[in-house]
């Protein structure tokens, strides 16, 4: 690990201005992904800003009937919150399907959104990787890519975003609240928060340098049956091959987002209109223009069958 200086801050504004004042600084909260990457020298910050002391660790009701989840709320606490369990079950289910209990006890809401891909070539510093080292090439294209993305990919990168939580937030139309170094605040719809890889796969989200996530807000509950179905190589503590977050209303309409298939949570509004027609119609629209390889073509079938399974479950009432 590279040596780094370390600082604790007390307010979001202090955090953002410290980041702006310091070259190559990173925020650290749970640290469960950043430290892992620092040990491998994939991440090499010169300065760490510990944001655990800034507050932002509560879940509060908003005026419009939703919830504001502080950036530092731990994954365990978000999943276990009584309001989340009752009104946003898809989010509880997604969180509980991710990582291990020890990691969820540390990992934060903001950190979960900002975690980096688990593409094995990104982790293997002996291999070319455009995300780790821009313009060095992509080892996954033409390599072993069973876990990789099938939609929204580019010639530069086929990595997936590993978060389960973000997929549920996408289906819930969450918003990300931030503060910048100059003190200005903005609200970013989760749909626009993560980027597709394009020519710049090392840029994974729309935050500007030093911009700090302060909270994620959930709109008022939409009702319906909530599902988060994660399909993986073992039944616990593994990243998704595909995952489906779904909210199905009594009439059969609803919302669907996918994990494990793209560089960001994948949701196509037009596809959701087809929910009453079943998984095949939905999947054809959701994964239109999919670019698969020999290793990961199975994901298309797996998505369809997982959606059909959930629709069947929803009809059981």
């Amino acid at each position, binding site marked *: *690990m*590279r*040596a*780094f*200086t*370390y*600082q*604790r*801050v*007390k307010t979001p504004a*202090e955090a953002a*201005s*410290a980041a702006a*004042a*310091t*070259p*190559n*600084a990173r925020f*650290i909260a749970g*640290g*469960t992904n950043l*430290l*892992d990457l620092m*040990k491998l020298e994939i991440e*090499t910050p*010169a*300065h*760490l800003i*510990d944001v*655990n002391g800034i507050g932002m660790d509560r879940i509060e009701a908003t005026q419009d009937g939703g919830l504001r989840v502080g950036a530092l709320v731990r994954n*365990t606490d978000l*999943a*276990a919150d*009584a309001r989340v*369990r*009752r009104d946003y*079950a898809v989010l*509880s*289910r997604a969180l*509980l*399907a991710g*990582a*291990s*209990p*020890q*990691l969820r*006890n*540390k990992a934060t809401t903001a950190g979960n959104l900002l975690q980096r891909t688990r593409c094995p070539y990104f982790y293997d510093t002996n291999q070319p990787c455009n995300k780790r080292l821009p313009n060095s090439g992509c080892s996954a294209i033409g390599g072993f890519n069973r876990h990789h993305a099938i939609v929204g990919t580019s010639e530069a990168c086929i990595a997936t975003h590993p978060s389960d939580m973000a997929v549920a937030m996408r289906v819930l139309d969450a918003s990300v609240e931030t503060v910048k170094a100059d003190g200005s605040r903005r609200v970013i719809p989760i749909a626009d928060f993560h980027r597709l890889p394009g020519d710049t796969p090392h840029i994974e989200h729309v935050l500007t340098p030093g911009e700090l996530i302060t909270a994620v807000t959930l709109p008022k509950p939409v009702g319906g049956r909530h599902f988060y179905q994660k399909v993986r190589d073992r*039944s*616990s*503590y593994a990243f998704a091959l595909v995952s489906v977050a779904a909210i199905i209303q009594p009439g059969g309409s609803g919302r669907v987002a996918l994990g494990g298939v793209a560089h960001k949570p994948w949701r196509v509004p037009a596809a959701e209109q087809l929910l009453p027609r079943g998984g095949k119609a939905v999947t054809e629209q959701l994964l239109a223009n999919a670019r698969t390889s020999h290793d990961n073509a199975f994901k298309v079938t797996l998505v369809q069958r997982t959606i059909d399974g959930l629709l069947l479950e929803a009809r059981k009432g």
Partner: protein
Amino acid sequence: MDDHLNIDAARRELLIAGALSATTAALPGAANAQSAGAASPRQASSPTATPAPVTAKVALRVNGQRYEQEVDTRTTLLDLLRERLQLTGTKKGCDQGQCGACTVIADGRRINSCLSLAVMHEGSEITTIEGLGQPGKLHPLQAAFVKHDGYQCGYCTPGQICSAVGMLDEVQRGIPSHVSASLEARPLLSPMEMRERMSGNICRCGAYSNIMDAISEVSGTGSKA
């Protein structure tokens, strides 16, 4: 090595004097003291240059005893426990949060000590396997692991036991799991629940069935399971 530490300590005193009270900063060189409030790091001459080590003080309680240490900022909680405090019961397995051998209880919650920086535990209360029980006065889970032979090589055992302590507390607090049929009902510790909730601890010897027996006995779910 000692000389180096002394120099760092001298720099530290100088820097702390100049630092703003709201900011705890650890800086690599006195040249940065002027900008201590903003805590700017030493300018890296090139991306491949190796930056000089930085140390910082951390005070925490481990198994009820207070420790104050000057550590390299890179030191993980795991390495602090093992290498500095000689509490070698906590084990280093994968060192990347995948095996659970390093599990300790920090401020009442089980965590992977390999993925947590020591300097981030200022004021923390840590319990390691040594703090749960000692020979002659074992924690009930330690005794149950012995009774049920819940290990073979024993390397994962301290992590398994600390994790089980945290897990039973989470169930007590009503925290659901991935396999809980209802998110709102009180969780019961069925064998399936126990397997899911202990999935962050890998046992390469495969002593899982005996580990289950040991935890079941302590949780009182053995007869109901």
